């Protein structure tokens, strides 16, 4: 159908055009994917629609196709040069009739396109401001029209067959010719003419498909109807390529007509993710498992701490809930715990800035607040996506920091905006406690069946529900008032209130040809369910990219977040804890009796009177206790990148991340347990500075081989300093450091540096076989200078078998992957050499100094050694309607650093040694898909599940168990958490019931159960199975999203339940209230136990606070911590763009959101199973948890 032959006059134009295009591409390639992509989008805008992509994902689709697009674009545009068979007439000869009335240039182009079949290619940004064009009905050539329309602009035009490019005149190279030596090819002789039609698999014609004669410079494109004509040798091969479709090679074989169908490339083939060190890579080439979740998953049902929002979303990522309130710290572990005594949490990278979770201190056995972690200073509205590099192979480029996986957070940029965009979001939720209490309300306050009749007896039994049956009679309360003896079930409802959380953010983004920016501002105001507790947060996040020259690119990100949290709850033990003070009041005790909370002298009115000063009045705590933490986080990152050629670039980057934290804690004057009050203040600064450089090579060799390599280095400088003072006060009510009786100024300081060199090489063959090698060598300041460098290699491979082999059509995509990698966890400073210190001894004016370490420095200490092997498969079926991803891994930790007890005759008590061994292995499975998809309705379920099996392999010679932490994390009983050789990580240990061979409990002559002779293992506190099940239902503009979150296979020792039993509130204690309790089991001589024990004696014996007559049996209160929760539900309505077309508003989404909607399965009475006391490795013990919170509210998002 060749009507027009390209004339020689056009050759020059074409040459210059192509040249310009190629040069342009050099500048924009890869590093400026988005602008390339945009260009591309316009170039192929008609075909995009035809490809039937989900509309919503169009933009994301083009974001992701990054490298593929670019590569294809080069190929495609190169064809322009060789196209000898173009049909177009010169535009100075083609006339159109056109009239314009206040119309834009784009509208004018449309008119011309409609009437001629020519197509305009332009960057929307460059032409959209040309508007208000007026033209009476005129007939003129296209060229003349363009001359008029572009007269006063810096734009010019070029014709390429039936396409007309509109571009900046500076990009034009006017005199380039085909003979230009910069253009390294020549025109082949024409052999024969081949023609044909290219269609997609639905039979629709594809326009713009590039057809190239293999190993030659000859090329052509398909026209609107999918037809093409090309001159090709009879024995040549044609290469058909088109973005979004799988490139096909067809032998001409003497044919003159070849029609082909291009197969759409699956998402899996084109997807690009940000991997370690910010390197963007095609998902198909990855030999390890990563999971990306969009920022929108975090924003609607948001949590104060980012980590909690990840719960249930990613296979293999376990978020341990703590029972320390919305501002408490969190513990994320990926594929299990990698160290026996601590650490184990992933590295966070936010826009290239390393970001430690920086746990600020959690409460332990003796209570105190949980000061949270740094993840609360990240605003979810700024997050574009989170990519979790789960396997060590994925994080190996982070060297010593990558051993626990890496969470790469990318914040939103302005690259997607069109001109200046404004987005406003408000999320308002109302939180209420979920009352987990299931107490007995049959028996009231009192002891030994006697109800209180005096103030003293009321005070002594304030937390004792061992009274007689509740009968409505008159009793005396702790204030001496006569009150009815009735149950008070509403103490929680009466004390806690509805919390309101309001988060507003506004973002401003903009983009032009040279750069883009986004500025996000956030304000959070939230009040907790505990009166007078709440959070204020203000944050700014700025993100910009600018092309200083076509080769030199600058990006800059900066963020600032201020956070102030008032009155964090005190946890665990009773003093200062409103939770304990509301939980344990006797069943007939009305909490409101305690308000007002102070007497005329300002002294606390204690529920338990002077004999129980440690049990606070909850209103006194909320009225007078003050706890404030203020944090300021500053992060900044400047990156300069220089592109030497289109395949080689160098970038330098400097980033800084600083967290300033101030803490004030006031125990007020008049407090029962500390009458003169106390004040503690501290201030700390933790900052990290990184400077890095990286060469990047991205080159194809021939058509089959590709290399993507990086070589770089990083310098890390990490500093922590803190100062604190505190103590009891002298003058009443004066809460000042100057009023602290003995204020000693304490300082803390540590600094370390790590230098690194690293490199990676990603070798690809034919787009289906990929091998990646990475290596990183870290030099540590924390290690002995002689042995301070360690090499961390990885190798991974991926085989896209669906590309390499012939597959049935229902298999859309299939990939096998495998990897092996080594990583680590770093060491703390000052562990390798001996240092001396002032010992704080003053002997008649002589100051004594000496060695004050009891742990001997280990000059040979090295970081732990983590090795992981992973094998996985990823498949898509039925055009990606069903996707399966499975991974199996085996992760082994050697040289774990343990503080090993040594003979103290050596001068020291212990030695840090690389000695522990640990293994985690597991299986991860992700199933997702789109089972139903119609025009108006779609259903997207996604199910993930992960099993992790841990095993402690070795501690130290002759040592079979190791107690974690201070060894005694529970307030009641003989409980500890141990690592035991041969068992799963984190064994809860305590006493169990002594049982006979048949499993019957054995009872002593006193009728009380006998406990095991030794402390026994009661199970691991770490969940073995974790996962989630999400479902998105879309109907027209409505989206309903749900997330089920589940975990199985962990135990929790509930100190709360032990105490509830001891004080007679636990429902179990109803047994035997009348006539005594006869334990079910046998006596020591094997007979059925018939001895009756007073219920109070019985339950207090096995569950009381350790002491005389108490033989705690931890087994009784160790529960299966498994659960299934309906974590999130949201219902969104998006007002369609069409309806807003005429408005300045671009989009509105309104959502109803809910979090922690329902607990579908649990086995723990009175508490939430996710109530761990701390976020340390000591998992599986709870005491007085902050009640779980249900949040309900709405989210409004408006884009302008």
């Amino acid at each position, binding site marked *: 159908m060749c009507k027009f032959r390209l004339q020689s006059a056009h050759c020059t134009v074409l040459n210059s055009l192509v040249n310009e295009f190629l040069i342009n591409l050099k500048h924009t390639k890869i590093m400026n994917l988005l602008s390339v992509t945009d260009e591309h989008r316009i170039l192929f805008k008609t075909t995009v629609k035809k490809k039937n992509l989900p509309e919503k994902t169009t933009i994301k689709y083009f974001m992701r196709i990054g490298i593929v697009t670019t590569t294809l674009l080069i190929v495609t545009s190169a064809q322009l040069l060789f196209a000898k068979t173009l049909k177009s007439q010169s535009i100075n000869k083609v006339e159109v009739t056109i009239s314009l009335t206040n119309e834009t240039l784009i509208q004018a182009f449309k008119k011309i396109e409609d009437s001629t079949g020519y197509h305009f290619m332009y960057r929307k940004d460059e032409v959209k401001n040309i508007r208000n064009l007026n033209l009476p009905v005129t007939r003129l050539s296209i060229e003349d029209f363009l001359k008029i329309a572009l007269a006063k602009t810096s734009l010019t035009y070029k014709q390429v067959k039936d396409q007309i490019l509109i571009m900046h005149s500076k990009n034009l190279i006017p005199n380039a010719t085909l003979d230009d030596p910069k253009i390294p090819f020549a025109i082949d002789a024409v052999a024969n003419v081949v023609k044909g039609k290219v269609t997609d698999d639905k039979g629709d014609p594809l326009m713009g498909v590039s057809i190239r004669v293999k190993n030659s410079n000859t090329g052509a494109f398909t026209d609107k109807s999918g037809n093409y004509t090309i001159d090709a040798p009879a024995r040549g091969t044609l290469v058909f390529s088109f973005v979004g479709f799988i490139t096909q090679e067809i032998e001409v074989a003497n044919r003159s007509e070849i029609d082909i169908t291009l197969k759409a490339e699956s998402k899996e083939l084109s997807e690009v993710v940000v991997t370690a060190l910010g390197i963007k890579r095609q998902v198909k080439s990855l030999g390890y498992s990563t999971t990306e979740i969009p920022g929108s998953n975090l924003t609607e049902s948001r949590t104060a701490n980012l980590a909690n929002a990840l719960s249930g979303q990613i296979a293999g990522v376990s978020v341990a809930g703590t029972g320390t309130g919305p501002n408490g710290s969190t513990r994320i572990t990926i594929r299990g715990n990698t160290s026996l005594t601590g650490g184990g949490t992933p590295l966070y990278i936010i826009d290239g800035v390393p970001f430690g979770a920086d746990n600020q201190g959690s409460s332990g056995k003796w209570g105190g607040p949980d000061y949270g972690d740094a993840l609360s200073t990240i605003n979810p509205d700024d997050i574009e996506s989170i990519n979790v590099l789960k396997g060590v192979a994925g994080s190996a480029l982070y060297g010593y920091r990558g051993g626990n996986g890496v969470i790469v957070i990318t914040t939103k940029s302005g690259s997607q905006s069109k001109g200046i965009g404004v987005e406003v979001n408000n999320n308002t939720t109302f939180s209420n406690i979920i009352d987990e209490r299931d107490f007995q309300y049959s028996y009231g306050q009192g002891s030994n069946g006697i109800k209180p009749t005096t103030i003293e007896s009321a005070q002594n039994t304030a937390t004792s529900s061992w009274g007689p049956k509740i009968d409505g009679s008159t009793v005396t309360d702790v204030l001496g008032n006569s009150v009815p003896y009735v149950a008070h079930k509403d103490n929680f409802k009466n004390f806690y209130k509805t919390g309101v959380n309001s988060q507003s953010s506004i973002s401003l983004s903009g983009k032009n040809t040279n750069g883009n920016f986004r500025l996000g501002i956030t304000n959070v105001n939230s009040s907790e369910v505990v009166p007078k507790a709440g959070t204020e947060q203000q944050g700014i996040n700025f993100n910009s990219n600018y092309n200083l020259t076509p*080769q*030199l690119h600058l990006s800059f990100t900066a963020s600032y977040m201020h956070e102030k949290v008032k009155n964090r709850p005190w946890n665990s033990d009773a003093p200062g804890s409103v939770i304990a003070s509301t939980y344990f009041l006797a069943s007939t005790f009305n909490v409101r009796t305690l308000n007002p909370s102070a007497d005329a002298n300002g002294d606390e009115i204690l529920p338990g009177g002077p004999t129980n000063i440690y049990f606070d009045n909850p209103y006194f705590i909320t009225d007078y206790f003050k706890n404030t933490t203020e944090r300021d986080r500053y992060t900044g990152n400047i990156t*300069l990148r*220089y592109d030497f050629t289109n395949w080689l670039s*160098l*970038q*330098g980057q*400097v980033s800084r991340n600083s967290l300033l934290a101030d803490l004030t804690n006031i125990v007020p004057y008049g407090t029962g347990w500390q009458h003169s009050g106390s004040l503690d203040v501290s201030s700390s600064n933790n900052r990290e500075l990184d*400077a*890095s*450089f990286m060469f990047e090579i991205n080159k194809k060799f021939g058509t089959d081989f590709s290399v993507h390599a990086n070589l770089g*280095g*990083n*310098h890390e400088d990490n500093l922590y300093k803190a100062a604190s003072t505190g103590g009891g006060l002298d003058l009443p009510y004066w809460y000042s450091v100057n009023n602290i009786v003995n204020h000693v100024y304490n*300082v*803390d*300081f540590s*600094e*370390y*540096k790590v*230098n690194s060199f690293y490199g990676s090489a990603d070798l690809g063959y034919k787009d289906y076989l990929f091998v990646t090698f990475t290596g990183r060598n870290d*030099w540590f*300041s*924390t*290690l002995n*200078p002689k042995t301070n460098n360690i090499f961390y290699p990885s190798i991974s491979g991926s085989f896209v078998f669906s590309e390499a082999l012939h597959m049935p059509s229902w298999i859309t995509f299939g990939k096998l992957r495998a990897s092996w990698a080594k990583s680590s966890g770093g060491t703390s*400073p*000052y562990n*390798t*050499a*001996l*240092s*001396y*210190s002032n*010992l704080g*001894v*003053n*002997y*008649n004016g*002589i*100051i*004594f*100094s*000496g*060695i*004050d370490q*009891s742990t*001997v*420095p280990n000059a040979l200490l090295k970081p732990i050694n983590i090795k992981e092997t992973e094998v996985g498969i990823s498949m898509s079926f039925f055009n990606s309607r069903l996707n399966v991803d499975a991974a199996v891994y085996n992760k082994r930790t050697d040289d774990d650093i343990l503080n090993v*007890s*040594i*003979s*103290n*005759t*050596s*001068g*020291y*008590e212990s*030695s840090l040694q690389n000695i522990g061994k640990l293994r985690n292995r597991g299986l991860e499975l992700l199933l997702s898909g789109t089972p139903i998809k119609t025009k108006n309705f779609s259903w997207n379920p996604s199910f993930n599940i992960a099993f992790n099996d841990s095993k402690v392999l070795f501690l130290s010679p*002759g040592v079979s168990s190791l107690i974690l932490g201070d060894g005694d994390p529970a307030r009641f009983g003989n409980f500890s958490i141990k690592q035991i050789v041969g068992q799963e990580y984190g064994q809860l240990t305590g006493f169990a019931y002594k049982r006979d061979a048949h499993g019957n409990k054995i009872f002593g002559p006193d009728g009380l159960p006998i406990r095991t002779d030794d402390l026994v293992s009661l199970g691991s506190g770490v969940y073995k199975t974790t996962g989630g099940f999400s479902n998105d239902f879309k109907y027209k503009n409505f989206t309903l999203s749900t997330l089920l979150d589940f975990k199985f296979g962990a135990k929790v020792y509930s100190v709360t339940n032990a105490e509830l039993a001891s004080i007679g509130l636990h429902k179990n204690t109803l047994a035997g209230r009348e006539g005594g309790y006869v334990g079910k089991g046998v006596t020591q001589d094997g007979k059925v136990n018939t001895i009756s024990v007073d219920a109070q004696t019985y339950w207090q014996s096995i569950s009381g606070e350790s002491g005389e007559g108490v033989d705690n049996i931890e087994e009784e209160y160790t529960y299966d911590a498994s659960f299934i929760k309906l974590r999130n539900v949201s219902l969104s309505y998006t007002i369609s763009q069409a309806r807003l077309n005429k408005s300045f508003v671009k989009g509105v989404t309104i959502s109803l959101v809910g979090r922690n909607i329902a607990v579908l399965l649990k086995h723990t009475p009175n508490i939430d199973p996710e109530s761990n006391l701390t976020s340390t490795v000591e998992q599986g013990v709870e005491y007085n948890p902050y009640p779980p919170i249900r949040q309900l509210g709405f989210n409004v998002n408006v884009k302008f």
Partner: protein
Amino acid sequence: MKNKFIYILIGCVLFSWGCDKNFEQLNVNPNSVSGEIIQFEKLFSTAELFSAGNSDGHAFDGERGNLIYCSCLIQHLATNGYSYGDKYNFNEEYITANWEALYPNAIKQIVDVVHNTKDKEGKTNLYNIARIYKVYLFQFLTDLYGDIPYSEAGQAYTGGILLPKYDKQQDIYADMLKELDEAATALDDNAPNSLGDQDIIYGGDVTLWKKFAYSEMVRIAMRMSKVAPDDAKTWVAKAVAGGAMTSNDDNALILHYAVNDAQVSNNGSGWELINEEAGQFKMSKTFIDFFKSHNDPRLHFYATVSPDPGALNGTADFNFGDTTSSIQLGMPNGYDNAGGLVPITGAPNFPGDVNDYSIVNRYTFAKSEAPTFVLTAAETQLLLAEAAQRGWISGDAATLYDDGVTLAFSQLIQTGANWSESAAEAAAASYLAQNPYNAGTGIQQINEQYWVAVFMDEYEAFANWRRSGYPVLTPVNYPNPSINKTGGTIPRRLTYPLEEASTNPENYNDAVSRLANGNTMTSRMWWDTP
């Protein structure tokens, strides 16, 4: 232009990246100090002070080792509270307290001083003084426990030895003598005194340290009197030739300062006797009776009777009591509280009130500022008297005995006893006239006087008693075998910490295998032959 950018870029990155070669310095905690800057003199002070039995301010080791065990074993004191030293009961924490306190504190510091000052210019005297004091510390430990980690002790950092072997006591003794000899010889009068006030015993005085070394040599040599008399003879002679202590001015004392608060600088035992353990310990009947039977005027400075001995220092009821010799009454060892198996109320001549029993004199020994006697001229002279009596050295045993006793009298002035030098000497002369030295019972007399002279250095009293057999003590034979762990014999040693069995099993088991009765209180050590 292009190139400029590249160079700036590379320059920026590499500059910040490449210029950190000071990793080693960076890894030094600025809140502590490195070995290059620290003055090892300060570690020496620490080793001295921490050897005084009060490593935590609460006399962790002084209370448990000195008072609860040794003072009662040796019947200086008696208690109807603690059963351990008084009735030969076993308490793992108490019996190992000195081990637990010394190795990770004083030993660690002194080993570090010796290690770091060897061959260091200007530190000759510090090095040799530290060697001498190190010998004292190890003798202290080996005499309590027997075979102990010695040659490899305290070297977890300097030598990388995490699990030290237990040297045989015999070898330890040989090495200690060699060390003393070498160090005393090497002390240089002309070298500058780098210690000064940091030496809380002698102010860095080389002459005094020399005397200390030779007195220590006497102590070590005489400890071998039974097991290796020939060596003992050789080394005592060497010590005499070198010049041991002859005057109370030569005494090695650690002074303490009155701070009525739990402070490391307090005399641990003294502080305990009027604070946490006020009233708990009485003077033993054995001890008081000895004073009385010898009409010893020193009783006035050793004992007191307080109407409320349990009242804590600093409280209104606290009092110094009545020190009149005639009313002093010793409590027999081996009794319980009223209501116990062997109630004190049933003791012969029970005065009717336990408070009528004497307690440690609060003007002299039972006070926070009482000095710690590390090594004294009196001890030295008494041991030399024995050496003379045995014919190992020339000199008159009686004269040496008289000198020793006289020194013991006047040394009380150093505890704050309210008498003058001349009064003390006169009293001593009078005492010696009433209790003259008799060569026939000389060894007994000498060692009984030694027993009196080392009061409050109960470890030394216990060791010398085991060696010499004097004074002759009647063991307690408490009728409950779950308390009386020795079958009614006075223990011969303190036991190794059980922790060693788990942390250092190989070396521990090796050492225990050499003990006749295993790791018990009744096994005898090398020099303690029956």
